[in-house]
């Protein structure tokens, strides 16, 4: 089996996978701080090339495409579902969508959604 997946092979594979209808819902931890909302999504087997984050109609769509598993041999016992990951969140209008950042490391996709200034807690001083 070819160990080295070239970039265009991967792109073709991703293009085919994007039409896939079956996904796994990843486990996601959500943290809310005064500055932003942070999501940690568990997407094992997903690296930078496999992440698709889009915003459609006020919804944040997180998709992770798994890397092909280059394993010698045939499956003897299977528990893992080798499907891609997908989860959709409805975004509060107070999220600054153009400042959303994301990174993926060791199969964890971290998405930071900054909150707009106007909803951050503010102290009101007495005159």
């Amino acid at each position, binding site marked *: 089996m070819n160990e080295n997946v070239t970039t265009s092979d991967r792109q073709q594979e991703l293009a085919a996978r994007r039409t896939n209808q079956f996904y796994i819902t990843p486990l996601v931890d959500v943290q809310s701080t005064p500055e932003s909302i942070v999501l940690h999504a568990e997407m094992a087997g997903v690296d930078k090339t496999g992440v698709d984050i889009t915003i459609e109609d006020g919804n944040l769509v997180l998709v992770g495409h798994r890397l092909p598993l280059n394993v010698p*041999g*045939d499956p*003897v016992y299977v528990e893992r579902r080798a499907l891609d990951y997908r989860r959709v969140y409805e975004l509060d209008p107070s999220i600054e969508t153009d400042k959303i950042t994301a990174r993926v490391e060791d199969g964890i996709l971290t998405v930071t959604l900054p909150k707009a200034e106007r909803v951050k807690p503010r102290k009101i001083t007495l005159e």
Partner: protein
Amino acid sequence: METNRYLPYAQSELSAAFDRFATLREEMDRLFGSRFGSMARTPASFQTWSPPLDVYEDKDSFTVVIDLPGLKKENIEISLREQNLTVSGKRTAEENTGEQGFRAERFYGSFQRTVNFPAQVDPNGVKASYQDGILKVVLPKAEAAKPKQIAVSAN
């Protein structure tokens, strides 16, 4: 999953009712017999972290693949005793849980999975790698366990 049965004749209400029970029974069997069957039987199991694993085999080796996102290599322990491979590890919950709220779906704490191999493995050749949240352990088979071709001689 609903399966619709299209019968060439009309069913009496009683037999239609029995049919629905049969479908329910099939669904329950499928639930209890599936991978999550043991979880369905013991609700406490929903709380333990059991990362899913696969085992692959070819003529020279076994490969164990486990989905373990977000772990550090130093927190994963792999040990082999005779024909049993045990993978364990731990992950502590994030310290900063966000002042305004936190929703935890991911499992934390420790996990342990054990795989028993039907053939002898060579403990000196075992290699493990952890990449993008996937742990792969390749265990070469001991020479004695590899399949051998036996030539048939004509007499």
